[in-house]
C-alpha cells in the first residue's frame, strides 16, 4: 500500500506518481489522505490500480480515468469522473454537478445523491446513483446507462440520443424528446447486472424501475419542431 499525504506532498507530486504507472505495476494499492477538497485528485490515471481517497474531493476528481478503480470515502465536487474512459469510480457520499459528464466508458457509482447535470453528454459510461439526481441530468446523453434508485429532477434526458435511463422513484419532469419506454427482458437483465456491479443489488430490484429514452424526434432539424429546440 502506497500512502500519499496530499497535505504534505502536494497534488502535482501525487498525479505525477500516478501518471508514471504504465501497464502492469507492483504498486497496485494507493491511499490518498488529507484531500481537503483539492481539485483534480487522481485525474488522468491510466493503469489497473486501486486508489482510495480518504475524505472529500474538489473539482474533477478521477477525470479521464482509464483502468483504475478509484474510491472516494467522502463527497465529490463538480465534474467527478468527467470523460472517464474505463475503470470504476465509487463515491461513498454525494456528488456535485455534472458527475460523469461526457464519460465514454467504465462505471461510476454514487452512493449518496448527485446534483444537477449528472451524466450530461454521456457517451458510453454506466452511472449508478443510489440516491437522487438533480435537474438537467443526462442532457444530450448519447450512449451508456444511467440508473437512479431515488428520484430525478426537472428536464431529465433533454435532447437525449441513445443512452438508457432507469429511474426507480419519481421524475419531476422529462426534457424535450425524452419519453418513458417499455421495460423488456433484456433491460431487466441489463439492470440486474448494473445494480450488482453498482453495489446496489440488495437495495433495489430491476422490476421497480421505469425506463426512459429518446423519442428520436429531434435527431435532425425539422422546422415543425422549432419551438422545442
Amino acid at each position, binding site marked *: 500500500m502506497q500512502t500519499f499525504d496530499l497535505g504534505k506532498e502536494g497534488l502535482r507530486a501525487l498525479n505525477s506518481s500516478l501518471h508514471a504507472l504504465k501497464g502492469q505495476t507492483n504498486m497496485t494499492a494507493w491511499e490518498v489522505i488529507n484531500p*481537503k*477538497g*483539492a481539485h483534480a485528485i487522481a485525474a488522468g490515471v491510466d493503469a489497473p490500480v486501486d486508489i482510495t481517497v480518504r475524505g*472529500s474531493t*474538489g*473539482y474533477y476528481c478521477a477525470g479521464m480515468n482509464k483502468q483504475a478503480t478509484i474510491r472516494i470515502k467522502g*463527497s465529490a*465536487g*463538480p465534474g467527478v469522473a468527467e470523460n472517464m474512459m474505463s475503470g470504476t469510480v465509487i463515491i461513498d457520499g*454525494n456528488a*456535485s*454537478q455534472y458527475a460523469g459528464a461526457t464519460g465514454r466508458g467504465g462505471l461510476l457509482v454514487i452512493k449518496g445523491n448527485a*446534483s*444537477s447535470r449528472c451524466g450530461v453528454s454521456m457517451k458510453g459510461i454506466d452511472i449508478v446513483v443510489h440516491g437522487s439526481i*438533480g*435537474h438537467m441530468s443526462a442532457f444530450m446523453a448519447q450512449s451508456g446507462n444511467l440508473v437512479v434508485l431515488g428520484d430525478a429532477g426537472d428536464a431529465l434526458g433533454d435532447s437525449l440520443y441513445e443512452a438508457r435511463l432507469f429511474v426507480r422513484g419519481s421524475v419531476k419532469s422529462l426534457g424535450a424528446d425524452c419519453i418513458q419506454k417499455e421495460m423488456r427482458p433484456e433491460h431487466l437483465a441489463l439492470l440486474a447486472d448494473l445494480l450488482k456491479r453498482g453495489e446496489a443489488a440488495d437495495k433495489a430490484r430491476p422490476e421497480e424501475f421505469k425506463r426512459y429514452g429518446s423519442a428520436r424526434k429531434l435527431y435532425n432539424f425539422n422546422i415543425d419542431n422549432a419551438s422545442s429546440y
Partner: protein
Amino acid sequence: MCGIVGLFLKDPKLEPHLGAMLTDMLITMTDRGPDSAGIAIYGGAKDGLGKITIQSATPEKDFKDLDGDLHDAIGQPVTMLVKSTHAVLEVPLDQLDAARSALSHLRPGVKVMSAGDSIEIFKEVGLPKDVAARFEVAKMKGTHGIGHTRMATESAVTTMGAHPFSTGPDQCLVHNGSLSNHNGLRRELIRKGMTFETQNDTEVAAAYVSQKLKEGEDLGTALESGLEDLDGFYTFVVGTKNGFGVVRDPIACKPAVMAETDDYVAFGSEYRALVNLPGIENARVWEPEPATVYFWER
C-alpha cells in the same frame, strides 16, 4: 468565477474567532478570483451607537481631524478608528443619517462602505491575504460575516466594484455570477429613490433586496421575489443585522456548499473553504438547491 465564504455563528464562544475563521476561508478561495476582496463583519451593536464604515483614496488627507469636524457638525460625540484606507466612525444611532449627510459635505471624496448598528465592510483591490492583513480582519469578532474574492466580469476592478455591496442599514450582499437585466432594474430602483455608486450588476441585486426590505418584506420573502425579478446567473449570500441568507438561480451553475453544526452555519463556493472549520467532519454538508431560499435569523 468569484469565491464566496460566509459564517453565521450559533455558539457565542466562537464569536471572538469570527474574523480569523473567515479570513482563513477567504484565503482558501483566492484562486477563484484575484482581482479584489472584501469582508462584511457583524460585530454586534453597542447600546445607542451606530457605525459608519468609510473609505478614501487619500486617507491621510480625508481622515485628518474628521472625528472633530463631524463632532462640530452634528454636535454629538464621534469616535473614529482608522484602518488603512477605511475608517469606522461611531456616532449616536439617531444621528446616523445626520452624520452621513454631514460627511458628504465635509469630505466629498469619502465613500460610505456600510452603515448601521452592527455592520462593518472592508474591501479593496488585491488578493484576499493582502486585503485581510491590511484591515486586520483576523482580529475582528462578531456574530456573522461574509467574505468575497472577485474575478471581475461586469464592471471595472475598483474598490467600489468589490463586494460586499451595502445598500441599506446593516445589509450586505455578495454575488458569484452575472446578471443580464441589471440596467433596466437599476432604472426602476432609481425611480423608487435608490442611489447607486457603480455600474456593477451586483449593486443592483443588493439595492433590489434593500428596496424589498424597505417595503416591509422579510429577508426570505425578498429573496423569493428576487427569483422572479433577477435574470442571470447567481449564487447570492446576503447579510442583515440578525440574519444570513443564501439563494441560487434556477440553473444553479455557480457552485455552493453549506455546512451546519450546533455551533455554526457555513457557506463556501467550494468545500475547500470549509475544511478547517471545527467539527466539519461531523457537520451536515449539502449543496443548496436551485431556486430555493435559505435563511437563518437569531
